[in-house]
C-alpha cells in the first residue's frame, strides 16, 4: 500500500485477521478490501463468523492477529468509540437507539461525546436529515415510539452524524417486517450515493444482494469467495458454496 497515492487506498482493509471469544479462533486469517463508494455485503451460513467479523471491525471484539486499516490508517488497537472518531461508524443489530430519549436527542448524542474532529455541525445535521425525511419530521418523538423501520433509519442517521468514511451495518433487516426490508436496503443505497462506503453483514441474502455491489461469502471463519453481488446471485449456487462444494 503506498501512501503517496491515496486514491488507491481502500476505505477499509483487513489483512490476516484472527479473532474469537474464549478458546478457539472464530475468524481464521480473514483478508478483505472494501472499495470506495460501494456496498460491500458479507453473507454466510449461521455461525460462519459474520457477526464476529463486524464486531471485530467495530472494536467490540479484540483482534488476536492481523491488521485493520481505515483509509490506510491502522486502527487495529483503537477502542470502539475512537474508531467512530476516526471515521468508522457502526450500527448494532438491535438496541441501536436510546428508546427513552427523543429522536433529536439521539441525533445529538451520536457525536456529542466523541473526542476530536467529528462533532457534527448544523450542515452535517441537515445533510443527514435530508436523507431520512421520515426521521427528520419526528424529532420531538421518543425513539421508542417509532416503528421498527423508522428506528433503523434513526440508527443509520445517528451513525452518519459523525460523517464517517465507512458505515458498518450489522444485519440491518433483522427483525423487520418484509415491507420495511426493501425500504431499509433502499436507505442503504441512499447512504452509498451520499458518498459513504457501506460494509454490512446480512442473513437475508436474497433481499440484500440486489442492493449490494460486492458480496463476500464467509464460511467457517474463512473467506470462500468475493465477487460482484449480481454475479453471486446469478451464477453461483449458494447452497453448494455454503457447504463447501464450489
Amino acid at each position, binding site marked *: 500500500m503506498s501512501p503517496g497515492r491515496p486514491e488507491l487506498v481502500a476505505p477499509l482493509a483487513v489483512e490476516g485477521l484472527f479473532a474469537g471469544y474464549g478458546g478457539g479462533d472464530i475468524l481464521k486469517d480473514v483478508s478483505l478490501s472494501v472499495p470506495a463508494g460501494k456496498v460491500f455485503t458479507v453473507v454466510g451460513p449461521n455461525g460462519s463468523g459474520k457477526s464476529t467479523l463486524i464486531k471485530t471491525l467495530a472494536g467490540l471484539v479484540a483482534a488476536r492477529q492481523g491488521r485493520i486499516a481505515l483509509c490506510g490508517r491502522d486502527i487495529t488497537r483503537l477502542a470502539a468509540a475512537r474508531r*467512530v472518531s476516526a471515521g468508522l461508524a457502526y450500527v448494532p443489530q438491535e438496541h441501536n437507539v436510546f428508546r*427513552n430519549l427523543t429522536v433529536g436527542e439521539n441525533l445529538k448524542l451520536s457525536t456529542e461525546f466523541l473526542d476530536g474532529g467529528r462533532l457534527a455541525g448544523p450542515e452535517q445535521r441537515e445533510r443527514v436529515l435530508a436523507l431520512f425525511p421520515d426521521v427528520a419530521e419526528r424529532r420531538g418523538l421518543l425513539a421508542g415510539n417509532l416503528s421498527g423501520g423508522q428506528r433503523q433509519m434513526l440508527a443509520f442517521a445517528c451513525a452518519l452524524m459523525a460523517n464517517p468514511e465507512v458505515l458498518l451495518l450489522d444485519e440491518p433487516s433483522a427483525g423487520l417486517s418484509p415491507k420495511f426490508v426493501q425500504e431499509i436496503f433502499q436507505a442503504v443505497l441512499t447512504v452509498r450515493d451520499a458518498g459513504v462506503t457501506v460494509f454490512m453483514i446480512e442473513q437475508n441474502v436474497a433481499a440484500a444482494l440486489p442492493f449490494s455491489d460486492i458480496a463476500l461469502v464467509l464460511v467457517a471463519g474463512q473467506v470462500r469467495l468475493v465477487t460482484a453481488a449480481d454475479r453471486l446471485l446469478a451464477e453461483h449456487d449458494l447452497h453448494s458454496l455454503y457447504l463447501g462444494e464450489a
Partner: protein
Amino acid sequence: MAQLVLNGLITGMIVALPAVALTLIFSILKFPNFAIGAMLTASAYIAWSLNVLAGLPLLAAAVLAALLFALAMVLTDRAVFRPLRERGPITLLVASMGVSFVLENLCRLAFGNLARNFDIPIARPHRFWGLRVNQEQITTAIVALAAMAAVYLLLRHSPLGRAMRAVADNPALAAARGIDRDRTILWTWAIAAVLTTIAGVLVGMDRAIDPLMGWSYIISIFAAAILGGLGSPVGAVLGALVIGVVQEVSTLVIASNYRQAVSFAAIALLLLFRPQGLLGQRRIKR
C-alpha cells in the same frame, strides 16, 4: 384539612429530593440504594458541624456540606460500589446496607444520640387565608422546588443529563457513543449527594438532627420512588407529594406514629395492584 394537605405537600417536597436521588442511582447503577436514609443523616450532620461548630452561616454551611458530601459519596462509590459493579443488584443492595450502617454509626460515634438544631432564629408563623405557614416551610418550598427544577433542566437540557439518561437507557450503546460510564456514575453520585444534603438541611431546620432521622424517612423515600415507578425522576416527585399528603391526612384517622406504616401500606397496595408504579413501566423479572 387544608392545613394538613399543605403540611403534606411540604413534607412531600422534602421527601422528593432523596427520592429523586434514589431514582437516579437506581436507573444508572441498577440497584436500590439502601444507604439513602443514612446519606440524609450524614449530610445533615456535616452541615450542622459547619454551621454550629465552625460558625458558618447556614447557607454557606449547606453549600460547603453539599460539596464535601458529594466528594464523600464519589469516594464511597470508588471504594465500595465500583468493585462490585458487575455483581448484580442483590450484592450491591446488601453493600449499600453496609454503607448505611457505617455512615449512620459514624454520626452516632461522633455526635452521640442527642438531637441537634441548626443555629437559626425562630420565626413566628405567618397566616394566609387561615392557614398557618412558618418560615421553614416557605424556605423548604422554595429550595425544594428550585432544586427539582434544576435537576429537571440538567437531565433534559445538558450534555451530562443526556449522558445520564443514555447510560440508564442502554449502557452498551452509550459506550459506543463515547460516553464514559464511570464518569457519568461519579456525577450521578455527586448529584444524589447534593440532593440529599439539601433535604438533610431542610429536615434539620424543620425538626432536629439525630442519628435516626434518615431511618425515619427511608420507607417514605422508597414508597415515593416506587410510586413513581422506580426510574422516573418526575414520577418520584409526584410519588413523594402523594406520600406526603397521604401521611399527613392519615393522622386524622390513625396515630401520627404510624407515618412510615402508611408509606408501607402504600407500597404494599401498589405492588399488589399496579406493580409498574403510577407512571412507570412494568419491571418484572420472574
